[in-house]
């Protein structure tokens, strides 16, 4: 067995290489002085990065993406928390039905979901725009938020909430003073997880977007235009950095959350 010790790390590195290779290429090409991505490389340039800041549509798409991601994550977290509290703390008629409907979006292909929402918005006459994208993102993120927050709620006894009410606090006061502070790490985790999904969501957004687009859709439309390809790649390189920071932050928060209430 001992001589096989290297196998695990080797396998891990291999997978890491497999998963990171395209990313490294994207970063490499973002500094390449050519509009087509082929070898050999043409020469070093930072002009794509300079162009980045001079492309208002790109910055607008970035702003839109942030707006959609923040808004939809907020609502997904809020609704997810409400649903999770109801499910984990109460018995009620139709509980099973409710929780299966609420988790069903996880297993529905985004294509079908996108189509259904598109038909719905068309039928009731809502023009497609960032709100429709945001609604779609809440629908797909709600079950994840619910599960993350539900896991946290299951991790501490309902006695804590009872103790608070026993000591004279109302139910809603208890939510504010006891429940929410304790599930805060999971609320943040749910928010970040929704945020990251929303940030790079393409398949669903594609159906629901109007004239104001999010970054993935903008990149897609730019990909149809060869001269803009390097710019798109540069955006990706920047996004990699930003999302790495976000991931590190969420990891850190999770560890922090786990440590804080080990009791």
């Amino acid at each position, binding site marked *: 067995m001992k001589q096989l010790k290297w196998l695990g790390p080797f396998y891990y590195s291999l997978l890491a290489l497999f998963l990171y290779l395209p990313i490294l290429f994207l970063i490499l090409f973002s500094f390449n002085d050519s509009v087509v991505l082929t070898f050999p490389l043409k020469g070093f340039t930072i002009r794509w990065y300079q162009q980045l800041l001079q492309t208002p549509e790109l910055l607008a798409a970035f702003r839109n993406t942030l707006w959609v991601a923040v808004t939809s994550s907020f609502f997904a977290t809020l609704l997810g928390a409400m649903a999770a509290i109801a499910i984990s703390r109460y018995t009620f008629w139709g509980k099973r039905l409710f929780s299966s409907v609420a988790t069903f979006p996880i297993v529905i292909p985004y294509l079908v979901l996108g189509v259904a929402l598109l038909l719905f918005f068309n039928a009731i006459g809502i023009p497609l725009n960032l709100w429709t994208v945001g609604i779609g993102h809440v629908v797909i993120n709600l079950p994840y938020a619910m599960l993350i927050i539900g896991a946290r709620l299951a991790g501490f006894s309902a*006695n*804590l909430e*009872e103790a*608070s*009410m026993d*000591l*004279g606090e109302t139910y809603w006061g208890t939510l504010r*003073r006891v429940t929410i502070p*304790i599930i805060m790490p999971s609320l943040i985790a749910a928010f970040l997880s929704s945020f990251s999904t929303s940030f790079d969501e393409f398949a669903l957004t594609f159906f629901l977007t109007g004239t104001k687009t999010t970054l993935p859709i903008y990149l897609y439309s730019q990909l149809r235009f060869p001269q803009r390809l390097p710019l798109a790649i540069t955006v990706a390189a920047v996004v990699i950095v930003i999302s790495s920071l976000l991931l590190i932050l969420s990891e850190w928060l999770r560890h922090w959350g786990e440590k804080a209430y080990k*009791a």
Partner: protein
Amino acid sequence: MEKFSVQLFDISKDFEETDSKQMFTAVNNITLDINQGEFFTMLGPSGCGKTTTLRLIAGFEVPTSGRILIQGKDSTGIPPYKRPVHTVFQNYALFPHMTVAQNVAYGLKVKRVPKTEQETRVAEALAMVHLSRLGNRMPAQLSGGEQQRVALARALVNNPEVLLLDEPLGALDLKLRKEMQWELKQLQQKLGITFIYVTHDQEEALTMSDRIAVLSEGNLIQVGTPDEIYNYPNSRFVAAFIGETNFLDVNLDKTEGFKAWCQIGGQTICAEHPDDLPLFPGKAIFAIRPEKIRLFAQNSQVKGEIAISAKITNRTFIGTDIRYVVILNDGQKLTTLTRLNGDAENVHFEIGDKIQVSFLEKDAFILTE
């Protein structure tokens, strides 16, 4: 002042079982009066409904039927935060995100007690449970016993009319538990408030309580002082659950009110029902506690008492006592306890020895269930 602190009238609580969707009755038609300033214990095995009853009093559950009066006021639909009762939870339920002092101050803060008063009362409460120095710690940094005291202080600081304690000592080790039992009793006597205490530990119940209610499968079986419960159990369940009891199947040959005559080991014995219920001829249970049985050598004179011949089949030394198992000539077995007190009458028997079994008729009783 009301005579009764808490009164339950015909309380029932049904739950729907999550899997089978069947209704399950946790508490079945319980009627109870708990006196002002009393240390009242609800005792029973797990699943007997004692915790549910406590939660009904606290207001965490709403009874399916019946009424609850607290301090004479109908509290049936009142939410927990409007009741003058506070709870000490089995797992303490300390808020993990607050310090000890913040935990204790919680109830005062909710009631918007002025800051300075909060501080003094928290300090007093912590002093009362000997935790004055730990106010700034987080609950996770405390030992089990310390957490227990914080939970107590957190409830008591609000001057509740009734304190509900749900197996508060269950998680502590034996030595600490004994210590806390004594402290709790002292505290209750000093404060003079009603304690309603839930436990499955009969010894704890007997040592601490003014009165005990024994519950089984949602039913209230018996209520009484520790002495009454121990010496006059009204049912086989209570007799078996509290202390140790020998049960012999007998046939009542003759009855007279709550008195009955039956055959044990070929002798006719007269015993009474502990609750003075009328008895009728037929099958019944003869009960006697092991420590009430005395053993004599086969040939010694047993004067004025019942003497039944028997044989020793088992012998165990348990420090203060010797436990013998004897078999009567009709095949029934009895367990006996003989205290080792250097008494002259104390005779050592070996397995196989033929002996005589003796007891007082007043120590035996007849049960019908």
